[in-house]
């Protein structure tokens, strides 16, 4: 087993063990911050699969997240149980994502990104227009929550993050991930090697939508509400982009590091008042300028004699 001799998996295992033991030594306040950060980590990983591997800049991750969150919330309000609501929300996200991606992927250049951006604005409008069922700008309460105990909520989030990371990271390292990178880098060359570029990109979009939608639903049942500010707003998109680029594009796991950094520091620097967002953004900007491959990308950079 070559895997056992490399440090990477061991470090990952150590970090997971450390994270798993957190409820033993961390207060409820910080547990809550990490819980949010973990869901955010799944948003970011899903986005990196599209940006880092399929080479498509999706400005509408919150379209997928929002569909998952509101889909799950509406089902819950209709009386279904949480597992069924989560599954339903994920299905809504995947179907919505596929309907969006099918026409968008036919376009070249910046138009894919623009279409996804417009999709978010449309979703925002729909939520406001149908305020009687969605709660509009105030948000939609859900009758059920995952748990009222901070530790249990933390466990749910960590478990969900770990399983998502395992699947998405595995996928990125599989044959599929390799083909996806080829299509993202040069679609003509990939097609000339015999790969149906649209098929692979669409599949990546659906996988991204699945995990985004699930995470959106989970977050809704953690917070007991779905609101435009937490799952649809464009500022969420910006944070996802920063988290991925900061952590390391094309690494999947870097997206988790980036998310934890963003959310944790945003919270820690809260005493700075208005300045806190500025400081966090400045740090992120510095990392992006000086380490364009991100933190994890820099750590894992290929080292071999020239």
């Amino acid at each position, binding site marked *: 087993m070559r895997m056992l001799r490399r440090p990477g998996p061991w470090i990952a295992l150590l970090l997971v063990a450390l994270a798993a033991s957190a409820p033993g030594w961390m207060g409820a306040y910080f547990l809550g911050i990490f819980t949010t950060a973990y869901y955010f980590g799944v948003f970011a990983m899903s986005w990196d699969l599209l940006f880092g591997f399929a080479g498509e800049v999706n400005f509408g991750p919150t379209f997928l997240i929002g569909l998952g969150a509101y889909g799950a919330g509406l089902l819950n309000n209709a009386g279904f149980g949480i597992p069924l609501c989560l599954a339903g929300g994920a299905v809504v996200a995947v179907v919505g994502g596929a309907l969006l991606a099918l026409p968008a992927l036919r376009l070249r250049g910046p138009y894919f990104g623009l279409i996804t951006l417009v999709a978010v604005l449309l979703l925002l409008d729909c939520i406001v227009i149908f305020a009687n069922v969605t709660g509009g700008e105030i948000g939609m309460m859900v009758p059920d929550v995952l748990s009222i105990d901070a530790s249990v909520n933390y466990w749910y989030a960590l478990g969900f993050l770990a399983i998502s990371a395992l699947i998405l990271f595995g996928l990125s390292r599989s*044959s599929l991930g390799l083909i996806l990178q080829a299509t993202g880098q040069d679609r003509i060359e990939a*097609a*000339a*090697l*015999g790969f149906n570029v649209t*098929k692979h990109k669409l599949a990546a979009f659906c996988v991204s939508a699945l995990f985004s939608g699930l995470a959106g639903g989970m977050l809704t049942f953690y917070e007991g509400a779905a609101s435009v500010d937490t799952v649809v707003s464009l500022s969420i998109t910006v944070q996802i982009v920063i988290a991925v680029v900061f952590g390391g594009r094309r690494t999947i796991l870097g997206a988790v590091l980036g998310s934890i950094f963003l959310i944790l520091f945003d919270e820690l620097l809260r005493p700075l008042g208005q300045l806190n967002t500025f400081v966090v953004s400045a740090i992120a900007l510095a990392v992006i300028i000086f380490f364009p491959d991100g933190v994890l990308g820099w750590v894992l950079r290929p080292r071999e004699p020239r």
Partner: protein
Amino acid sequence: MHDEAPLLAVSGLTKRFGGLVAVRDIGFSIRPGEILGLIGPNGSGKSTVMRLVMGIERPNAGSVKLAGTEIAGWPTHRIARNGIGIVFQHSRPLHRQTVLENIKLALLPDSLWRLAAEPHVEQRARDIAERVGLGAVIGRRPPTLPFADLRRLEMAKALARDPRVVLVDEPFAGLTLAEVATFSELIDGFRRDGRAVLLVDHNVKSVAALVDRVLAMYLGERIAEGTAEQVMRDETVRRVYLGGRIEAHPRKELDVRGGEALLEVRGIDVLYGKAQALQQVSIHVHAGEFVSVVGLNGAGKTTLFNAISGLVPFAGDIRLGGASLRGRTPARIARGGIVQCPETRELFAELSVRENLDLGGQHLASEAARRTQLDWLFDLFPILNERQRQKAGTLSGGEQQMLAIARALMMQPTLLILDEPTLGLAPVILEQLSKALTRLRETTPITVLLGEQNVTFALPHADRVYVLEHARIVWEGAPGRFAAEMGAGYL
């Protein structure tokens, strides 16, 4: 062997881009074990033919048959699965993966459900690497490889799917002579495997030793077909590459032997990644002189001009009027008087003729100076006066070229660099352009550096000629001596 049915049969292939007919009624066939060379100067449509066969572009008309199956209009990936492989000129491997992984990629099935490669893939990838000569670098990542190895990797990827037809775009571009021999051997190996091979290149010379037959194209049409020798001797081909009869009109009154050169290029080297684009190139141009640099496409003319304009990094020194240009920005070099009219023309297509010219005159001191310059240019190119309000993008090719030259002249250059102004122009237009250059040369003291592959166009105007071949200057002399000393070996 010639009784065998062709593997690839193309007929009546036509492709239009808007109003431009890039490929018109092209047909050819290649049998198993046969190598066909498809040649033509830049803009002749040869690359478009290759892209049409591969399905990267969809033909407007015509048929492409692979072993009897009609594949015209199929998507690229389906054509690839059915047995056509392509070796691109520019390699874009996955940089984070090793050479072996890059080859394995090409061996994967087009499936969403196969998450791991089948066990035989690894061994097959190693075999292919060994065959193309990548065995020693199999674990390295592409950014650390020399240029020739990157080309080998492209070959390996094209071979992976065991294609029946292989298309190779400019097989020898950027390679050293020793590497050319190895790559010839590799391509010859395709023949022995019984594959049908299409080599696309600028000129016959580079592929002559390999090919069974050559098809020459110009302006989208077939101009000759036959063995390499036949095509090289063909009158039309010679006219396209060399132009018609070679003439020279040396100016008697110009005497520049004494003074210091206006432009002096001293032993410069340029590397594109790992490909040597210029090697120890030295030229000089005196004030008032008209110097032509001739060479086939790919010889390095554009690179030389881009080095002078500060657009590519180089080793060596370039001096204008005694001062080194090293470290100056392209904008500063242009304001300093070296104005380049690039082969791609770079007109602002959405702006009118007049607006394009006005942009060129932005740096002139006064409105009066702009007006004088403009009047002089309209006198030199009357057609531009008539077309002042027309959008530049809607002009014909010849008019666009004149506008590009005029815009460059608006900047009142001390040295005007013209990079292949004849690119893609019909013969009748060439004559108009040639007349304009003659007038320019006879009525003004302008200094011109002209790059051309069309010798007949380049020679009549020139006071002195350089021949650039394979990144090196191989000949320098008066245009009158060109025919005798270089005429035969040029093609």
